[in-house]
């Protein structure tokens, strides 16, 4: 099922691909350089017609990673586009200008992991409460909020 799609992906993304791994016939992971992210998203979303599912941000051994998940419903494949950085202050290009549906998830990653998105049209706090300190990111490793967040009563 995924062979034709992988072929298509390789042809269209070309030199942008840093690594492409086919986990099984329904899951494909592609890594691109952060600078190529927007172009790759444009190819997958606009040219190839994938549906944008969501993104997963995470702190890994050395740095941060964001996976944008795209679903090809007619081909039964989920393609995850990976970008990573080794910086302690992660920043990636925002894809919201290309895909309206990405607005919430990028704001959420900014709240919970402290990943900044360049060019996001509305970079406001999304889900944490207003009294939450600005520099504490709960989804980072360990329990970073301990001793920094007071109980409310």
């Amino acid at each position, binding site marked *: 099922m995924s062979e034709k799609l992988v072929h298509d992906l390789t042809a269209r993304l070309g030199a942008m691909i840093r690594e492409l791994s086919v*986990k099984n016939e329904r899951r494909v992971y592609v890594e691109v350089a952060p600078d190529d992210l927007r172009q790759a998203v444009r190819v997958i979303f606009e040219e190839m017609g994938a549906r944008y*599912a969501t993104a997963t941000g*995470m702190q890994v051994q050395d740095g941060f990673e964001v996976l944008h*998940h795209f679903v090809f*419903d007619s081909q039964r494949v*989920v393609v995850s586009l990976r970008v990573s950085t080794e910086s302690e202050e992660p920043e990636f290009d925002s894809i919201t200008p290309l895909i309206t*549906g990405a607005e*919430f998830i990028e704001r959420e990653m900014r709240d919970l992991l402290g990943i900044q998105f360049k060019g996001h049209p509305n970079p406001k706090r999304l889900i944490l409460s207003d009294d939450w300190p600005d520099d504490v990111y709960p989804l980072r490793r360990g329990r970073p909020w301990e001793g920094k967040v007071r109980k409310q009563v």
Partner: protein
Amino acid sequence: MTTIVPIGPFHPLLEEPELFRLHVDGETVVDIEVEIGWNHRGIEKICETKTFDQVPFVVERICGICSACHPTAYVQAVEDLADIEVPERALYIRSVITELERLHSHLLWLGLAGHFLGYNTVFMWAWKYREPVLDICEELTGNRNNYAMLKVGGVRRDLDESLFPSVLERMDDLDKHLNMLVGAVTDDPVLHARLKGVGILTPEAARAYGALGPTVRASGIPIDVRRDHPYAAYDLVDWDVISVDSCDVYGRAVVRLLECLESVKIIRRCLDQMRPGEIDSGVKEIPPGEGIGHAEAPRGETFHYVRSDGTNRPIRHKARAPTYMNLPTCRATTVGESITDATIILASVDPCYSCTERMGVYDASTGQKALDGKQLIKLSQEKTRQLREEMGE
């Protein structure tokens, strides 16, 4: 002059409490802002502290009414990660449970939609017919909601075959009542007048927002995870994806109602085709790696991503609920509509039909409260009443 109407964040039925700020000019909505986070419980972080076997109990509680779909998506993500085969009987059981859930969820929505339009009979009836479904859930799984049936590699407990005849009998009953409800909605000229052409979500907008489930299927895009990425027993039984292309609130109601009939069909066939056998493949270890699972919840696709480093706990678990994608579409659907229709449009994606009772209209210039939630529902109900009179009912 623009007036700001805050809707929410609290109300009886909140699925995910939200705050909508409607900017209205006269009676027309000119802009809408959404604020969420009232229900954020840090589930993704909690999941990192639980073992792979404990996580289903946590994700079950992401949303009470999707309490079979989230664990389904999660266990599929882990099964994808570790290449686990699931026994066939377990697949059938998963389908039965998720379809029962879809039935009671859609009936719940129908009742509330009826209430907002001033059809309280629909509200009471839909909820009355929803009760037998909950009874079946309780008999089969032990609880009315939060079934705790899902497990990595299978299901936790078997279904008791001696109950099947009585379940099938009640499905026949429900079928009759559902057909009556379908008739009542599709034949009512007042409902046509209230719902048709209201809250238009074009296919282009639906794609840009990544809308899911009945919301997008009413916009003529027939995507359904159950068919497109078959899981559980959906590729082993015969059923149809319901989709209409009217793009409006009426279409969303019709899709949900007809889907109920399909669910009844799926449950009947699953119970028929189910053969005795293993229900669990006995998973011992989860290797390092990453996996993705998705499942069709009553409101659309739930999407889970799990990463493991070879220990007994996930190091990252991402869960995305369908309303997360459906909710922002309100910007495309409510702007330009009348405030009397805003209630039902916001309700039509089935996010939080509920906020409305805590809704108030504030005059932006004075900050004084002009209308409260009850009055807004009254406004909506009043409009239906007027229409009925005009149409000579």
